[in-house]
């Protein structure tokens, strides 16, 4: 028996299920919670990059007005540390301070001002230690150690093709560098914790990955998982950034709530958010590329080093993706890639939209243009000659599954932007001071977690007796629109209107652990799980229908809010639900989706890394004022293959937002630290693109539903942001003939080829220096 799948229509008018609440200001974000008897938490932070904790005196703070509790690491009942890979990030520093933003003590008081004041009265005695601020220096043998053992956080290698480096007609050696990036979600981190009615604790906040946060909170409080409930508040953006930093806030607020027996709210100011939260990894990427005289790639040797900062966070996984995708979406018979991440005393780095790919995309796409220049071919032609096609094998030995749409995406943006013509024309313009340029970049990207970890998710679907439906998932909506996407799937399956669906914010007490909402896996994992639940429920309803109205289960289908048998309308969906209830048919189901199998052999760097891939291309047209170095991005053409679009407006939103975030990566943004001290702490200094900077964006989608995904959908959120920066940098070269190998392409770099702001070189304090 087969339950018929309703055709996913991806209606162009699918509106967000949370739209009205958000435009009216009624949506309740974490900091908007105002329960009675609330106390406010504040943190005493170290504000030095590396130090031994000698003594923390809290007596003055305790005496301050309005103070209910002052806590240090000594007051933590369970584990002091947490972490997804290594549990060494302290809730409060006990032995050592490892970066500027580390916390030492907590205060709960009746007003935020009282809490802040009391925190300032805490007296800490620290012994500053020699510190290290660059990953290269961190790996030198006598470098100061950030943790007990080596500063080498992780190393991955990929080994493809036999023998020594092949001899080639063209050899290019180039090094590229990228910067720290702050996620800059508009909503700073916030949480409220309160003691639970029957023991345990409840935490509601801007938490991205509720289940990993819950594991950490439970360990820190020494509670069983079931006694820790984490509820997602409406999230004001995350982009991968509300993971460990939210675990930290959650643990701290929970400790204070239990110590005071009152609800405790902790909200980071923007400045606190900047200094405390993790960033996107800066990379140094050294390439040696070999090609024949016609521009066909023969070899790539890639050596990357990433700044992991003070804690391991997700660096191991981030750098793994970089290793797997180091050679870009190109056929290369011989590849040697090595990616290392090192501990330093900088802000720690972790997941951010792109997850180890934007750095690589920037470097490899710049390098391909350098090869184009070397061979006097156009950037489009050099990519045509090397791009993956159906059935090609990646450097990890994986045959690309399904249709490879890279060329299709490239040709699409080239055609739409009139690339070849403009590129030749702009290149020839040597006169006017304001020059135009156009650039190209493309990528392939493994979908979801891949061999990084267990990849499964659950979605709960409950039909009410009037035919309305409640949906809840372990996948969180951080603004990207998962709730809408999943609701659309359910609405289509039951053939009911989207307005009859209510989506619940994620709550660890009510939905199955679905792993983290990362890696653009929301729609593919949560959506397939929603689909699975719908099929279970439809099966039950059709069985009942066969009993009640005769015929076979597969004679029935749902259409226009009703049950149909062939072309005869039998009963309204709501009445059917009511009948099902009367016949004791369970109307709730938990759908589950487990990603197809992936494999990985760390020693050889070989394996089926991802079960599916997506492909995309961007073209960017810029105007460069060669007298000021100012770059304006005029137009961006983006083409992405997405499997199947579930909700068209949300898909467009991912691309529009992704492109502008990529523009910031390319041109404006850099979280700059000097000897471990953050040099910018708010949006006056850290520049995000505004409406005046944002280009016109022209997008198109390629749809090739993936057979391994029941709903056909794959990923989009991250591909949308990873190739804009290289397209811009390539366009700047087309305009000016200046190749920028370090991001961001700021005014000075465009004008002078170097950055002026940095006063001294980034060096480390060595052991000899005081």
């Amino acid at each position, binding site marked *: 028996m087969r339950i018929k799948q309703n055709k996913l229509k991806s209606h162009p008018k699918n509106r*967000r299920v949370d739209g009205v609440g958000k435009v009216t200001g009624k*949506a309740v974000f974490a900091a908007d919670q105002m329960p009675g008897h609330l106390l406010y938490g504040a943190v005493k932070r170290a504000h030095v990059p590396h130090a031994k904790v000698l003594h923390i005196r809290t007596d003055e703070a305790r005496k301050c007005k309005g103070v209910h509790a002052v806590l240090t690491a000594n007051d933590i009942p369970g584990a002091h540390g947490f972490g997804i890979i290594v549990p060494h990030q302290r809730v409060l520093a006990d032995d050592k301070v490892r970066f500027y933003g580390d916390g030492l003590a907590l205060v709960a008081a009746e007003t935020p001002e009282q809490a802040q004041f009391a925190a300032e009265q805490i007296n800490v005695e620290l012994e500053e230690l020699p510190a290290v601020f660059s990953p290269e220096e961190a790996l030198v043998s006598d470098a100061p150690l950030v943790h007990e053992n080596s500063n080498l956080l992780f190393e991955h290698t990929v080994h493809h093709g036999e023998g020594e480096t092949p001899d080639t007609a063209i050899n290019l050696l180039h090094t590229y560098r990228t910067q720290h990036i702050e996620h800059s979600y508009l909503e700073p981190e916030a949480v409220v914790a309160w003691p639970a009615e029957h023991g345990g604790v409840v935490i509601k906040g801007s938490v991205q990955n509720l289940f990993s946060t819950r594991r950490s909170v439970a360990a820190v409080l020494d509670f069983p998982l079931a006694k820790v409930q984490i509820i997602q508040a409406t999230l004001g953006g995350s982009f991968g950034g509300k993971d460990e930093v939210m675990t930290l806030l959650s643990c701290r607020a929970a400790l204070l709530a239990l110590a005071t027996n009152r609800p405790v709210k902790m909200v980071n100011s923007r400045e606190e958010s900047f200094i405390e939260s993790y960033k996107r990894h800066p990379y140094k990427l050294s390439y040696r590329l070999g090609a024949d005289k016609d521009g066909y790639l023969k070899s790539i040797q890639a050596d990357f080093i990433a700044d992991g900062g003070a804690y391991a966070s997700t660096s191991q996984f981030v750098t793994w993706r970089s290793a797997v995708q180091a050679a870009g979406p190109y056929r290369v018979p011989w590849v040697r890639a090595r990616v290392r991440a090192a501990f330093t005393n900088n802000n720690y780095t972790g997941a951010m939209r792109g997850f180890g790919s934007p750095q690589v995309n920037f470097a490899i796409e710049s390098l391909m243009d350098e090869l184009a220049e070397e061979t006097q071919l156009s950037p489009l032609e050099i990519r045509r000659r090397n791009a993956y096609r159906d059935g090609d094998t990646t450097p990890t030995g994986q045959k690309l599954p399904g249709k490879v749409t890279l060329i299709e995406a490239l040709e699409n943006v080239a055609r739409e932007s009139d690339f070849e013509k403009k590129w030749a024309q702009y290149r020839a313009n040597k006169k006017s001071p304001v020059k135009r340029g156009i650039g190209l970049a493309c990528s392939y990207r493994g979908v979801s977690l891949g061999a990084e970890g267990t990849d499964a998710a659950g979605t709960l679907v409950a039909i009410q007796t009037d035919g309305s439906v409640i949906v809840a998932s372990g996948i969180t909506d951080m603004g990207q629109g998962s709730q809408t996407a999943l609701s659309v799937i359910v609405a289509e399956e039951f053939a009911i209107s989207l307005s009859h669906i209510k989506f619940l914010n994620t709550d660890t007490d009510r939905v199955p652990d679905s792993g983290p909402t990362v890696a653009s896996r929301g729609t593919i994992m949560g959506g397939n799980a929603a689909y699975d639940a719908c099929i279970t429920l439809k099966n039950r309803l059709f069985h009942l229908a066969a009993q009640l109205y005769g015929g076979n289960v597969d004679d029935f289908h749902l259409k226009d809010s009703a049950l149909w048998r062939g072309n005869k309308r039998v009963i309204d969906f709501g009445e059917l639900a009511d009948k099902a209830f009367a016949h004791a048919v369970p109307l709730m189901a938990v759908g589950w989706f487990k990603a197809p199998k992936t494999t990985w052999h760390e020693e050889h760097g070989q394996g089926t890394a991802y079960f599916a891939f997506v492909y995309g291309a961007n073209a960017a047209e810029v105007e460069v004022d060669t007298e000021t170095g100012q770059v304006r991005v005029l137009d961006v053409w983006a083409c992405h293959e997405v499997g199947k679009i579930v909700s068209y407006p949300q898909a467009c939103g991912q691309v529009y*937002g992704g492109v502008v975030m990529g523009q910031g990566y390319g041109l404006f943004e850099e979280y700059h630290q000097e000897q471990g001290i953050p040099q910018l702490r708010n949006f006056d200094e850290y520049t995000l693109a505004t409406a005046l900077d944002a280009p016109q964006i022209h997008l198109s989608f390629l749809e090739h539903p993936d057979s391994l995904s029941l709903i056909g959908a794959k990923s989009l959120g991250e591909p949308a942001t990873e190739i804009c920066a290289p397209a811009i940098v390539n366009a700047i070269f087309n305009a000016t003939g200046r190749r920028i190998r370090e991001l961001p392409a700021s005014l000075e770099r465009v004008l002078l080829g170097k950055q002026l702001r940095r006063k001294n070189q980034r060096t480390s304090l060595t052991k000899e220096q005081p």
Partner: protein
Amino acid sequence: MKISFTLNGKPISRDVAPDKRLIDFLREDLGLIGTKEGCGKGECGSCTVLMDGEAVCSCLLLCAQVQGRHITTIEGVQSGNELHPVQQAFIETGAVQCGFCTPGFVMSSAALLEKNPEPNEDEIRRAVAGNLCRCTGYSKIVKGIRIAGKRMREKS
């Protein structure tokens, strides 16, 4: 200090510390949580409210400064149950993602359209240049404002 002003069309009179920021007064004392704090420094526009029809940052205003003024917050832009045309258009164009910046954008746009019912693209972009959005890339916001302007013109 007692301050009196008009809030969302209604007179209000309260005892409040004169150096309290308007945003804190709105959110904490009055529970008007639709006004958001994204930076506390006048850089992001999430806290935008209207003062005598002008878009201003409520994180930079002290309560003493609103004495006798007309303040409108996101809670006051609707007329009854009917959404403001900007709100309606934002939903339709997909101008909302996480929604944290949205109230601020609604207020800046409402102020713009009040003064200039037929803004061109550049005027729209300039009017919201003080509002940051990390999610949407601004395209749909700009489109939403244009549509709202058109509808408001047709209505009047």
